[in-house]
Structure formats: C-alpha cells, structure tokens
C-alpha cells in the first residue's frame, strides 16, 4: 500500500499521477481525501477495463481512461466545493452542540460557588454585570452563525444550491462567536480569581475552564480553516 492506499496489484503509474494531481488541489488533509481518491481510482480502473474490452492494448486503455475522466483541476474543483461544505457543516455542528455543554459547566460553577442564585443581579461584582451579557451576545452570534451554517449545507440546498457557498462564512462567524464567548468566560474567571479566589468552588471551576479552553481551541482552528476555504472557493 502506498500513501494513497493503493493495493499493489492495481497500481498504475499514470493513474496514480492523475490521482495525485487531483488530490494536490483538494482542500484539507490527505486523510480526508482518502475515500475520494479510492473512489476515483476504482472508476478509472473500471474505465481501463472497459477500454481493454473494446480492444485497446493495456497502456492505451489506461491513457484513454485517464483522458475520459477529464482535467484534474476540474474534477478537484467539483470536490472542493463539497469538501468545503462538509467542513463548514461539521464546524457549525460541533460549535453549536458544545456551547450549551460548556455553558452548563459554568452555571454549575456559579451555583457551587454560591454566586448564583444567592446573589441579586445588583449585588454581583461590576465585571460580571458587564461580562455575562457580553457572553450572552457572543453565544447568540455563535448560535445564529452555526444554525445558518447547518441549514445552508443540508437538505435545503436541494432547492437553493448556491446557499452552500455562504456556509463557510457562516461557520467562521460561529467560530469567532465561540472564541469571543469562551475568552470572555475565561477572563471573568480570571477576574474572579484575582478578586475573590476563596469564593470559587475549585473543581467545577477547573472543569469549566478546561472545557472552555478546549472549545476555544477548536473554534479558533475551525474558524480560520473555514475562512481559508471560503477564500479558496471564490
């Protein structure tokens, strides 16, 4: 097996060169292209068999099959749009699903630390009074971006195929929203630690902080990848 996952018996240098040319133009990692490359390979080998059966000598049959599949750039363009759509959809789903999970950990922290529901809103430190609504705004932006990204990559695109083009941008908005929400959450934790560290319940706070850091890192990676793929599409 080579890096493209070819069984040695089917390896044809011309075919592998063509597949490598397609793969080199696809966004994302080679691992993500493995199934696409395998499917194209089996198609080209089927085409080669068909040309052989029609009477071409093997070497010419391979070349005829490659010619029949068309310009590698054009094949890659077709798949790039699909890969971008899939990437945007996954990013939007992960960001949307993890938001409430991380949120619950912060609420547990607030309850365990006797910040909520024991304090009236007016009694809370000014940092929290400003920070919590900002987190809510960031979460709202995230949810809107993510929901649009999911809608723009699903069944709706049967009727509105061009909607997919907007999905990477929407997923990037969701990603930046999530970065904002998590960074604010961590900043509020930092402020609380600096001013009233003794009141915080350590385990829930540590779990919430770890979850926020993980989500922030995922969102950052996803947002920049979606931005990059969006630029590549236009």
């Amino acid at each position, binding site marked *: 097996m080579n890096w493209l996952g070819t069984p040695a018996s*089917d390896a044809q240098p011309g075919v592998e060169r063509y597949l490598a040319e*397609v793969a080199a133009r696809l966004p994302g990692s080679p691992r993500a292209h493995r*199934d*696409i490359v*395998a*499917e*194209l390979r*089996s*198609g080209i*080998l*089927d*085409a080669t068999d*068909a040309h052989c059966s029609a009477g071409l000598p093997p070497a010419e049959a391979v070349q005829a099959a490659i010619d*029949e*599949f*068309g*310009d*590698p750039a*054009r*094949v890659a363009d*077709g*798949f790039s*749009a*699909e890969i971008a*759509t*899939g990437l945007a959809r996954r990013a939007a789903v992960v960001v949307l699903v993890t938001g409430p999970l991380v949120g619950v950990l912060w609420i547990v922290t607030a309850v365990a630390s006797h910040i909520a529901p024991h304090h009236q809103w007016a009694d809370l430190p000014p940092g929290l009074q400003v920070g919590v609504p900002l987190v809510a705004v960031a979460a709202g932006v995230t949810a809107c971006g993510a929901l649009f990204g999911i809608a723009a*990559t*699903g*069944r709706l*695109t*049967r009727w509105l*195929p061009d909607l997919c083009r907007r999905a990477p941008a929407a997923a990037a908005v969701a990603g930046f929203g999530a970065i904002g929400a998590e960074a604010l959450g961590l900043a509020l934790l930092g402020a609380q630690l600096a001013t009233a560290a003794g009141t915080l319940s350590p385990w829930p706070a540590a779990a919430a902080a770890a979850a926020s850091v993980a989500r922030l890192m995922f969102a950052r990676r996803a947002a920049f990848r979606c931005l990059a793929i969006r630029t590549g599409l236009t």
Partner: protein
Amino acid sequence: MRAETLKGHLDGILLAVLEPEPRHGYAIMEALRDRSAGQVDLPTGTIYPALHRLERTGLVRASWSTVGGRRRRVYELTSAGRRALETERSTWRDFSAAVTALLQPMPLAVSPQ
C-alpha cells in the same frame, strides 16, 4: 452534448439513471452514454462530485462494496430521491413542451401588397 448544455439537469439525469437499480460511478457513466445513445459524454470525473452532492442532500445513499476484488462506492436512490426525480420529470415535461412550442417554425406573415 457538453456539460454546459446539461447544466441544471445533471442531478435529475443521475437520479433517473439510478432509478432502476443501484450502480457505482463508472456504471452510472456507462448508463448515461447508453441511454442517451452516446449524446451525453461528460468528463467522467465530474459526475463523482455531483453524486457526493446528491448524497449530502439525502437524494441518494452510498455504500462501499467489493465486487471482483475491486472496492466500489455504490449509489442508490432514497425515497426523497424518487420524489425529487418525479418532480424533475414533470418540470422537464412542462418546460420542454413550452420550448418546443416556442421554437416551432411559424408561417411567415404575408405582407399586404
């Protein structure tokens, strides 16, 4: 027939080819050529992204299967795909009837002497 001419109809054509039975990519291409008596001859590589798009939108379902030692991705219509094909058929019938009527040669208007 070039890809540009087929633009907008490729999805419906792929669904129609998959209606009788599930097929893998190259068999779909062969069926396209056979059923159009060689008139449809797209670069074969371009139908694969179209099939992936149909899969994402739930109109076809794909699965890997090994036949004769070669792994192939086999596509079959979903029930949503069958419904979409019916819609595509009736839209096309209306469209082609209208365009046929419009392209019909008209008797030339006789100018008054």
